[in-house]
């Protein structure tokens, strides 16, 4: 059993802390937690490899979450790493666009640890 290696992408440092805390409260055994404040920074982290899951905000400066998601397939190290998109907006169109671009799920802010577990847990079955 090993600890999970995750990447949290959000332009808000506070939100990155909240997401990490929610993951821990959801009972996930976190090991390495990497952070990025936009899609471009996240791509650099992804290239380093060794990730079990990525959680990414959609609305971010420099490179938004959807652009990041669409660029991921060009990075070999991203292959097989599930991405959960996190959105503040209740826009169905945005969610559909994210899922079409390869996201494995989405989480709407605000969220509870239970909702995090519901969305993230199934994607990590067999990892830790």
């Amino acid at each position, binding site marked *: 059993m090993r600890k999970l290696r995750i990447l949290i992408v959000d332009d808000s440092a506070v939100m990155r802390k*909240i997401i990490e805390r929610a993951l821990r409260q959801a009972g996930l055994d976190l090991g390495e937690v990497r952070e990025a404040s936009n899609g471009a920074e996240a791509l650099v982290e992804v290239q380093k490899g060794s990730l079990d899951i990525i959680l990414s905000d959609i609305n971010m400066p420099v490179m938004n979450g959807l652009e990041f998601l669409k660029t991921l397939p060009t990075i070999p190290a991203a292959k097989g790493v599930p991405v959960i998109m996190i959105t*503040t907006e209740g826009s169905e169109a945005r969610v559909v666009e994210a899922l079409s671009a390869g996201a494995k799920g989405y989480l709407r802010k605000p969220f509870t640890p239970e909702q995090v577990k519901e969305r993230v847990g199934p994607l990590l079955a067999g990892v830790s």
Partner: protein
Amino acid sequence: MTITSATTAATDVSAELKRLPLDTAWKSVLECATLEVFEMMAATRLTPCIPPELTPHAQPATPTKTQSGLIAMVGMAGVLCGITTIHCSSDTAIRLASKMAGTEAAKDPNIVSDAIGELCNMVAGNFKAKITSLADHCMLSVSTVITGENYALQSAEPSESLQVAVLFESSPIQISLITQS
């Protein structure tokens, strides 16, 4: 300091959409959205209270109002054009940031602004998600946070507003939805 509403820039985006008028029934939705966000993301239960200026119906927003403390704003464009704001004292903002990011992190003013900006963003998003006619037809901007004393908000267009007042550990927080009419 005077801040002029930035929502005019969004007007072009929504020019072809029919704008929705401010609905006074949205006040309870805004209050519900606020309570949910603070409870889920700041682990704090707010107490609704009566605003200093009782506003049971939408009223024309005060054109210029002197403010102090900290105010976070998120622009809305689409069928609803305007801003959602959260206004509180600096001390309240620090205590909220402590709840969200920890006491040590909340010593950083940037973290405090970040926390209140995120709360405002989530309140605006949660509010519009609860109203079917807005969810897919209204976009949100990133948040802007202003701190300081004796500044004023001024809208370039006629506007209406809904106000929600809540107490956080006995400290007042005001949430407003200000729309261009």
